[in-house]
C-alpha cells in the first residue's frame, strides 16, 4: 500500500488518448475554471480597494471597482495599533511554540502506532478512535480547563492541541509506508525503537514533517476559538481574536491616525488584509506540501 503512494503523480503528463488538440470542450472548461478562479480572487481585490479608499469618496459612492484617490492611512492606523501587534506577538508564540510542541507529540504517537504489534496497541488505537466520534461537550471541557488552571493563559491555546488525530494518522500512514527492511536491519545492528525512530525514520520523513508542521502552523495562525472561550484577558488575545473584535464587535476601537481621511470600513479591511498577506506570500510555494500531505493521509483513510 505504502510503496504505491510514492508513485502517485499529481501533475503527470496527460496521456489519455491521442485527441490532444484544443477543442470546444477545452474552451468551455477553461472559461468555467477562469470564472471560478475569479470568484475566489474578487473578494480579496474588493477588500483591498475598500482598504485604500478615503472616507469622502467611500461615503459618496455606492459602488467601487477602483478609487480615484488612494490613501494608505488605514494601513498606518493598523500598524500603529498596539492591539494588532500584541495579537501578532501572541500568534507568533503559538506559531512557533505551539507548532513544535504539537509536532513532537503527534509524530511520536504516529510512529508508535505505525509499528507492528506491540502490547496495548489495539487498545490505544480503539481508545483514540472513540474520541473521534464521541465527546463530552462544552461544559465538561470548560470545567476541566478550569480545574487545570489553564483559563486566561496562552497555554490553553497550545496544550489541549498536543495531538491532532487527523495529522497523527497522517504520520502513522506515512511511517507505515516506509520499507520494513530499514527497521529490520537496524534491529540486527542492536538499535532499539527510539533509536530507530530518531536515526532512521525521522530523517526519512522530513517532507512529511514539513507537511504536518505546516498544517499545525496554519491552525495556529488561525487560532481564536479556544482563546475566545477561555481567555478573558485582552492582553493574550490572538491576532484572529483582535481581528474579530475589530470586524464585528468593537467597530470603533482603532482611532484613526489621520482623522477625517479614512473610513472605519477601510481600517477593518486593512486589518484583514494585514493578516492574509503573509499567507498569500507563502502559500504558492508551500502548496505542494499541503497537497502531498492530504493525498498520503486520506488515501490510506
Amino acid at each position: 500500500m505504502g510503496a504505491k503512494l510514492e508513485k502517485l503523480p499529481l501533475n503527470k503528463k496527460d496521456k489519455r488518448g491521442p485527441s490532444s488538440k484544443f477543442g470546444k470542450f477545452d474552451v468551455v472548461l477553461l472559461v468555467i475554471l477562469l470564472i471560478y478562479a475569479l470568484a475566489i480572487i474578487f473578494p480579496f481585490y474588493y477588500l483591498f480597494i475598500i482598504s485604500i479608499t478615503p472616507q469622502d469618496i467611500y461615503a459618496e459612492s455606492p459602488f467601487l471597482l477602483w478609487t480615484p484617490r488612494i490613501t494608505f492611512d488605514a494601513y498606518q492606523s493598523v500598524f500603529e495599533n498596539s492591539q494588532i501587534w500584541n495579537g501578532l506577538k501572541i500568534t507568533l508564540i503559538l506559531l512557533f511554540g505551539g507548532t513544535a510542541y504539537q509536532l513532537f507529540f503527534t509524530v511520536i504517537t504516529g510512529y508508535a502506532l505505525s509499528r507492528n504489534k506491540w502490547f496495548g496497541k489495539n487498545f490505544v488505537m480503539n481508545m483514540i478512535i472513540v474520541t473521534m466520534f464521541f465527546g463530552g461537550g462544552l461544559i465538561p471541557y470548560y470545567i476541566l480547563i478550569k480545574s487545570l488552571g489553564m483559563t486566561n493563559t496562552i497555554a490553553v491555546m497550545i496544550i489541549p492541541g498536543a495531538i491532532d488525530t487527523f495529522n497523527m494518522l497522517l504520520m502513522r500512514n506515512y511511517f507505515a509506508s516506509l520499507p520494513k527492511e530499514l527497521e529490520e536491519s537496524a534491529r540486527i545492528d542492536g538499535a532499539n525503537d527510539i533509536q530507530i525512530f530518531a536515526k532512521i525514520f525521522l530523517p526519512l520523513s522530513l517532507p512529511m514533517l514539513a507537511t504536518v508542521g505546516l498544517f499545525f502552523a496554519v491552525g495556529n495562525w488561525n487560532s481564536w476559538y479556544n482563546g475566545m472561550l477561555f481567555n478573558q484577558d485582552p492582553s493574550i488575545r490572538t491576532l484572529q481574536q483582535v481581528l474579530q473584535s475589530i470586524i464585528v464587535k468593537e467597530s470603533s476601537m482603532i482611532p484613526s491616525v489621520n482623522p477625517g481621511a479614512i473610513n472605519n470600513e477601510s481600517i477593518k479591511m486593512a486589518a484583514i488584509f494585514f493578516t492574509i498577506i503573509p499567507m498569500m506570500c507563502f502559500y504558492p510555494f508551500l502548496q505542494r506540501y499541503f497537497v502531498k500531505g492530504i493525498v498520503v493521509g486520506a488515501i490510506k483513510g
Partner: protein
Amino acid sequence: MDGILIEKKQKKDKSLGKYIYRSRFLIMMIIPAIVYYILFCYVPMYGVLIAFTDFSSSEGIMGSVFNHWIGLKNFETIFNLQDFWRVFLNTIFIGTTKVIIAFVSAVTVALLINEIRLRFFKKAVQIIVTFPHFLSWVIVASLFILMFSDNGSINQIIRGMGGNTVGFLSEDHLFLGLIFGSDIWKEAGWGSIIYIATMAGISTDLYEAADIDGATRLQKIWHITLPGIKATAILLLIMSVGGVLSAGFEQIFNMSNDMVEEASEIIDTYIYNTTFVSHQFREGVTTALGLFKSLVGFVLVITTDRIAKACGERGII
C-alpha cells in the same frame, strides 16, 4: 532484540511479561498520547454526569452527583423547549446539506481540473482554489458579509442593473444558500485534491481502450473516471457523517445575524448562546444538550458504517 518477529503464533508461546518488555520503548512513546487522550477527551466524557445533576460549581462534579442528582429532569427541560427542536432540525438540515454539497462540489472541481490540459494553467488554478481553505472563518465570514450585505458589492451590481435589493443576509433561505455557498468557496478546491490524486491513479490503459472504441470525453468521465473514484468517495462520505451534527460552529457564529438566527442556529451556537450570552440555562441543562448531540452523532456514524459494510464497502470502525 527480535521484536519484529513477533508473530501471532509466537505470541501465545511467550509470556505476557516478555511481550510487554519487548514493547517497552514503543509504550514509552505512546504514554504521552494516553495521558493526553484520557485528560482531554475522556475526563470531559466523565463530566457528562453533570447532565444528570443540578450542578453546583462550588461542590464540583462528584459533589453535585451525590447531592444534586436529578436524573433525567434536564433532558425533560430541553425536550420541552420549542427552541430545542427547531435548533435540532436546523442542525440536521444544515449538516446533511453541507456534507452532500461538499462532496458534489469537490468531485466537480476535481473533474474540471483533471480535464485541463494546459499544465501551467492547471497548476495556477489549483493554487488559487485551494487557498481559501487556509483562511479562518473570521476572515471568510467578513469577506462574504462585505460582498453580500444590502450595501455590498453584489447588491450594488443588482441595483445598478435595475433590480431590487436582495436580502442575502436577511432572508432565511438566501442566507442558508450563503452558508452553503461560502462553504463551497472555502472548501471545494481543497476537497478536490484527494479526488484529483485518485483520478491520476486510474490506469491509463482504460482511457486508451476507450479511445480506440471512439468514446467522447464525457463518456470517458462517466464510464471510467467516476467509477474510479467511487471507493474513495464512499469512504470520505462515511467519514463526514460524524460531523453532520457539528454543522460548522465557527462559520455560523461569524456569519449569522438576528434576522436569520431562527433558520441558522445550530446546536453548537445554541449551547454557546445559552451559556455565555443569555444565561438561560444552568450547567446541567447545557451539558445535557451537548450529551444529546454526542449520542445522536455516535449513532449516526455507527449506522452509516453498518450500512456501508452491508453494501460491501469498507467501513471505518
